[in-house]
């Protein structure tokens, strides 16, 4: 009788641990998703903050490229005003292509290309672009881990119990995914 009692106690304690463990797992993985989302926003903001400096250093040299410069400032405005990460990433794409135009045009201005300030900004902007890509990748990785936990047994039982739903991936268009491989 006493033995059965103890076994029941042990089983109950074990069950509590499993319940708590799974709960924590969901919270941890959920936090990881939120955190990686915040990282994307941090990098996007850094990028937007660099733009005014770039415009400032470019303006003096590229007097005849008003349209291209305007495109960059407009894209930045859209990015600053965008709500939600999907929209922001979309706006960032616009900004990226506008920047590409500026950097391509810069090739025609030897004085600008010799400007260390400009080179520094160009380097910095490319670096943030890489970081945005990595932050997005980690965001999707985190969602994958979370969704796997939600969908596979025995996680699926706890997911239903705690009301945890699958999360949506950040969509990336095909053309963007290709990493440009520069060979010298």
């Amino acid at each position, binding site marked *: 009788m006493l033995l059965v009692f103890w076994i029941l106690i042990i089983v109950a304690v074990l069950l509590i641990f499993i319940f708590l463990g799974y709960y924590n797992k969901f919270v941890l993985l959920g936090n*990881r998703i939120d955190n990686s989302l915040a990282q994307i926003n941090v990098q996007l903001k850094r990028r937007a903050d660099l733009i005014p400096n770039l415009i400032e250093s470019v303006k003096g040299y590229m007097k005849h490229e008003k349209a291209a410069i305007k495109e960059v400032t407009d894209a930045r405005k859209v990015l600053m005003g965008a709500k939600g990460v999907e929209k922001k990433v979309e706006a960032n794409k616009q900004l990226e292509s506008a920047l590409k135009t500026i950097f391509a045009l810069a090739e025609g201005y030897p004085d600008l290309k010799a400007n260390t300030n400009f080179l520094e900004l160009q380097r910095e902007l490319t*670096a943030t672009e890489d*970081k945005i890509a*990595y*932050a997005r*990748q*980690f965001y999707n*990785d985190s969602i994958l*881990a979370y969704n796997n936990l939600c969908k596979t047994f025995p996680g699926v039982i706890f997911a239903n119990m705690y009301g945890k739903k699958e999360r949506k991936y950040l969509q990336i268009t095909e053309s963007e995914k290709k990493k440009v*491989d520069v060979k010298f």
Partner: protein
Amino acid sequence: MKKRIDFRDQITRNKRRSVFLMFSVFVILVLLGYVISLAFSPAYFFIIMIVAILFSMSYILISYYNSHRIAIASVKATKAYKDDYKQYHSLVEGLTLASGLPKPELYIMHSKQINAFASGRDPQHAVICVTEGALEKLDKNELEAVLAHELGHIASYDMRYMTLVAVMVGMVAIISQIFLRSLWFSSGGNDKSKIIFMIIGIALAILAPIVVYIVQMSISRKREFVADASAVKFTRYPGGLIRALKKIKEDHAPPEKKVSKAVAPLFISNPFGAMGKTHPSLDKRIQVLERM
């Protein structure tokens, strides 16, 4: 999904192995103390044993909490400041975003070789060190791949186990060496048991480093493949690492003399040249990567 589980298993395994290693080193050191006390001065048995135990404990604690500093100091690396090494910093920052790890401290080793290593007891106390040669000779994608490989070691807790082995092995070698040397100069007694214990002492002193050397050799072979795989997971681009490994293979910088043999397995490729037994061959690694 499967790989993810494997990865977590590897972390647990590395932590368990680290504990086991520290325990074994403790036992070996105390045993050495026991042999020394019996061989030389049975009268002071208890004092020597207490000293041996205290010494082993502090030794293990000190090497556990300072392993990365010892490793960095042993290769005479210096801190890489952000203003001087912008690309290095920015690549690591990108990779920490891709891996979700905190940013490790970055160091530079003054060597013409293309090489790198990671160290530290956990991701919060990690360091990455690359050679000047690597920064000069590798392009951006290749350097990024090498750094991703090192972050892979950090993520899997490889570097805890590997650094502990390197630091503790290095010390065991030195201690046994001292023990052997002191035997040379001690005046021999006629007591039979004394001679037996001296033989055991010598055997231990010879065996200890060999045993740990075997452990050391068994660690990095599989780990390098796993770290290569995580590098690809972080960068999503095997090409960079393939080219980096090819460059390392064709690089003809002279073998490193400043590096202690004990820390060799920490590096991405053996600093003592291609003949080393501490790493899988670069060709094999390139082959595996090309299949990804």
